[in-house]
């Protein structure tokens, strides 16, 4: 069984594996998101309080969840690369960063659009959106640190360390923002607490969540191939790949 795990550390194997996995993951994602959209937009009943505006949750919740798990994946992959000096770890971390950042932006966009009908303004410093905004700053910090080094190897290791420091701070930031929000505005503000959802509303959300996760996996594989090539440009197997393509 361990052989499978060791093979994951060899760049040529990962390069080919990513090429095989990507279409399946993206195909699965298309199916789930397709079903989720249709079911969520058409068949799910409107919310008694927020009416049809609640349907934004089908995009907001998955992207918010993904933005956080992508950061965690980036920190774990970077940690593997830093501690066991496995280059693939850094390649995965470098690939995950822009995808996670794009979902953070999506979560912020959908969050503020959802806030408009509820609070009358696009940005009401809701604790969850504020943590999402700080998460975006953390993403930008890690990505700009990685690109600030000429030597990609050192850029990877520095970004991995910053991601680890960041992932330790994410829960701290989350709870301190909650504390800050409850201190000044009190808990009466309509929070994002997911309304206890009946099945007809819940299934589309779960399928959208699964679809977004599959999509993340698929795009990660695509981007990972580029990252692996950039880091292995000098090795012989890359020459075969170049000659073949």
């Amino acid at each position: 069984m361990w052989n499978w795990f060791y093979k994951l550390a060899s760049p040529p194997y990962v390069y080919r594996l990513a090429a095989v996995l990507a279409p399946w993951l993206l195909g699965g994602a298309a199916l789930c998101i397709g079903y989720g959209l249709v079911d969520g937009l058409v068949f799910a009943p409107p919310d008694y309080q927020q009416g049809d505006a609640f349907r934004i949750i089908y995009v907001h919740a998955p992207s918010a969840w993904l933005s956080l798990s992508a950061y965690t994946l980036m920190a774990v992959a970077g940690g593997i690369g830093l501690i066991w000096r496995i280059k693939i770890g850094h390649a995965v971390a470098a690939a995950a960063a822009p995808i996670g950042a794009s979902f953070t932006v999506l979560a912020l966009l959908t969050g503020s659009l959802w806030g408009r009908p509820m609070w009358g303004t696009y940005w009401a410093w809701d604790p969850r959106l504020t943590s999402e905004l700080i998460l975006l700053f953390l993403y930008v910090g890690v990505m700009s640190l990685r690109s600030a080094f000429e030597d990609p190897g050192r850029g990877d290791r520095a970004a991995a360390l910053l991601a680890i420091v960041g992932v330790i701070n994410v829960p701290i930031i989350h709870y301190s923002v909650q504390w800050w929000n409850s201190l000044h505005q009190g808990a009466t503000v309509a929070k994002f607490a997911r309304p206890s959802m009946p099945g007809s509303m819940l299934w589309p959300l779960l399928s959208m969540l699964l679809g977004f996760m599959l999509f993340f996996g698929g795009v990660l594989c695509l981007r990972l191939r580029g990252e692996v090539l950039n880091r292995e440009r000098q090795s012989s197997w890359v020459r075969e790949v170049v000659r073949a393509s």
Partner: protein
Amino acid sequence: MNSGAALSLDQVHVWRGDRHVLRGVSLQLRAGELLQISGPNGTGKTTLLRVMCGLLRPEQGRVSWCGEAITEIREQYQALLAYASHEPALKGDLTALENLRFSVGLKRRVSAGDLTAALACTGVEACADLPARVLSAGQRRRVAMARVLAMRARVWLLDEPFTNLDAAGAELITRLLREHVERGGLGAVVAHHALDGLRRLELQA
């Protein structure tokens, strides 16, 4: 001191971005052996020195001291080591004596007398109380050499110690290297002109 190789490198590979700077360097150094590293610019002489002192960790290969990998015994190994980089590495605002006190003092308990003696040994006793920024490049090189002396290290790793030195300075450094070898010390020196009685390692482009 066992007769086995004290400091050994085994198939060390280092890449600087896309350049394969060190290609499978292997060498063994016993007590009383000093290696001269020479070769055209940019062939990795300084990189090799930094690998030997544990600052730079090679992508492949192993550096070991008395059989143990230096990554395991980092502090003990570096305690026995004196590294003089290409720049003399002195704080401009501190006097020569203070520079020595704050760097050698971290390695071993040392008195002002020892430090002044080391400075005298390299001929810069007069500028013990002058800030390093007013010293000439040659004087600064001599203060850096005094620091290497005061550390009483078993391993000397010197990066072009002869730069900015006049004839007397070059002769002084050669004498100090010989005394270091006679005391059973070992190490590596990056230098271009021929040093008699030293093993040579020529790095190719």
